[in-house]
C-alpha cells in the first residue's frame, strides 16, 4: 500500500481537536502538544493537567484510547466525525482510539501524559 501522509495529517487534526475538547473539559489549565513527523507516521505527545474530581473521566479516556481491538472499517466510515462539534462524548473518544495505530497513556496525580501514533 502506498504511503498516505495526506490522510494521516487530516486524521491527526481531528485527533488533536477532540483531545483539546476533552482535556479542557477535564479541567486542564495548560496543555502541551508536540507533534513529530516520523518515517512511517505521526507521533503526538500530550501532557496536561486535570481537575482531581475528573480523574474518572480521564481514566475512561485512557481506556478508550487504548482499545483491545481496532476496526479499520469503522474508522473509514466515521473518522471525520471526531473533534467536529461541541458535544464530546465517550463515543467520539472511542472513535479517536479506533483511528490511532498505537497509544500509551499514563495518568499521574493531577497530570496525564499521552503518546499517540498514527501511521501513514
Amino acid at each position, binding site marked *: *500500500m*502506498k504511503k*498516505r501522509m495526506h490522510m494521516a495529517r487530516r486524521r491527526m487534526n481531528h485527533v488533536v481537536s477532540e483531545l483539546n475538547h476533552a482535556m*479542557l*473539559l477535564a*479541567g486542564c489549565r495548560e496543555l502541551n502538544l508536540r507533534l513529530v513527523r516520523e518515517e512511517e507516521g505521526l507521533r503526538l505527545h500530550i501532557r496536561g493537567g486535570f481537575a482531581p474530581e475528573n480523574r474518572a473521566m480521564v*481514566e*475512561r479516556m485512557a*481506556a*478508550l484510547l*487504548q*482499545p*483491545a*481491538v*481496532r*476496526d*479499520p*472499517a*469503522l*474508522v*473509514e*466510515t*466515521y473518522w*471525520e*466525525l471526531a473533534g*467536529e*462539534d*461541541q*458535544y464530546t*462524548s*465517550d*463515543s*467520539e473518544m*472511542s*472513535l479517536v482510539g*479506533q483511528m490511532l495505530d498505537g497509544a500509551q497513556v499514563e495518568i499521574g496525580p493531577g497530570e496525564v501524559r499521552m503518546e499517540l501514533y498514527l501511521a501513514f
Partner: protein
Amino acid sequence: MVEETTRRGARLENHLEWMLLALAGLLLLCAVIAQPNASLLTGLWRIQTSEAGLITDPMAIGGVGAALLNAALVLLLSLLLIRRMKLPITGAALACLFLMAGFALLGKNLLNITPIVIGGWLHALYKRESFARYVYLILYGTCLSPMVSFLLVRVRPGFRWLAMSLCGLVIGFLLPAIARYTTRVHQGYNLYNVGFAAGILGLGLASFFKGFGVEFTSHDSWSREGHLLLCGLMTALLGGLLAAGIRLGCRSWRDYRRVLRHSGRAVADFILLDGPARTLVNMALVGGVGFAYLLALYPLGVRLNGPLVCCLFAMTGFGAFGKHPRNVLPVMAGAVMASLLMIQVPITSPGVLLATLLCTCLAPIAGQFGWHWGVAAGFAHMTIVQNTGFLHGGMNLYNNGFAAGLVCILMIPIIEAVTPEPSEE
C-alpha cells in the same frame, strides 16, 4: 473497568461469531420448516431473478422458506467477507450483518449484491487501500441492489447481464466516497448513513436512466403467510440474545443501565464501549420494542412478513450500534403520532409500518437533545419519508435512511440554534 471490559470483548469475539453462525442456522432451520421440499430451491431462484424495489416481499415471490434461505445465505456471505478481511466483530459489524440478513427479506439477494461488492473492491483497488476498510460501506451500499435486479429483469435479453453488472459496479465504486461525505452532513445523528448516501446516488442514477427513457418502477408485494413461524423465529432470536447477554454477565438493571447513558450518536459502538454482555441484552430489548409494537397491532390485521422481520433485524442489529430503548421510544412515538394525525397514512399501511420501525435511525437526536426533540424528529420523519421514495424510483432499500438524512439537515441546525450551549466551568 473499561480495559477489563474491552479485553473481555476481544476474548469473546469468537463467541459472537458463533452467535452469528447460530443465527444463520436458525434462519436455515426455519426455511426448511416452512418449505420442506424442492420449492425451497425454485423459490430461491425466483427471488434472485425477480424485481426487488420498494416494497417487494420475497416471501410473496419465492415463499417464506426461500426468503429465509436467501437471508441465511446473504448473512453467511457477509460474515465470510468480514472474517476474510480479518475485521473484529464489533458493534458496527453486528449492525451491518443484522442489516444484511434483514434486508435479504426486503430485496437483497446473492445475485444483485455481488456486482456492487465487486464495484467496492474496485474502489479500494483504485485508491490502493485495503478492501477491509470499505467492507461495511460496501455491504451497506448493497441497498441499491434493486437497481441491479431491475435491469436484470427489464433490459432485453443479450444485454441484461451486462447492464446489471455495469450498474452494480458503478454503484459499488461511487458509493463509498459519497457515504463518507454524508457523515459530515448529518453529523452522526442518522444511524443509516449509507441510506442517505444511497438515496442521493439513487436519485442521480434514476434521473440519468430516466433521461434515456428507462423509468424505475416496482410492483408492490406484501405477504401475509408465515406469521406464526416468523414470531417463533423472532422469539428465539431475541430470547437467545437476552440469554447470551445474561450468561456473559449482564444480570441486573445496574449492569445494563450503563448502555442507556449514551446518546447513540455515531460512533456509539456498544461492544467497544460497554462490552458484549450489555450489548446483547440491549439488542434483545431494542428488537423487543419493535416486536411488541407489531404484536400490539395484530388485532388491526398486522402480520409478520419479510419486510417487517427486516425492520426487526435492523432494530436488533443497531442495538449494538447506537440504539437503546431510551432513545428509540420517543422517535417511534413521534412517528406514530404523525401517522395517527395525518389523513394520508393509515397506521397499518406497509410504508408506515416500515417507517415507524426504521425511523429509529434518528434515535441519537432523542439521546443527545432530549425526548421532546426525538418525538419531533420521528414526526418529521414520518411526513418526509412519504415523499422520498419516488425520487429514486423505490430503488433504495434504505429509503428511511435517506429521509432521516433530510430530517437531520432540517432539524439539527435548528436544534443547535435554540438549545443553550452546555455549561462549562
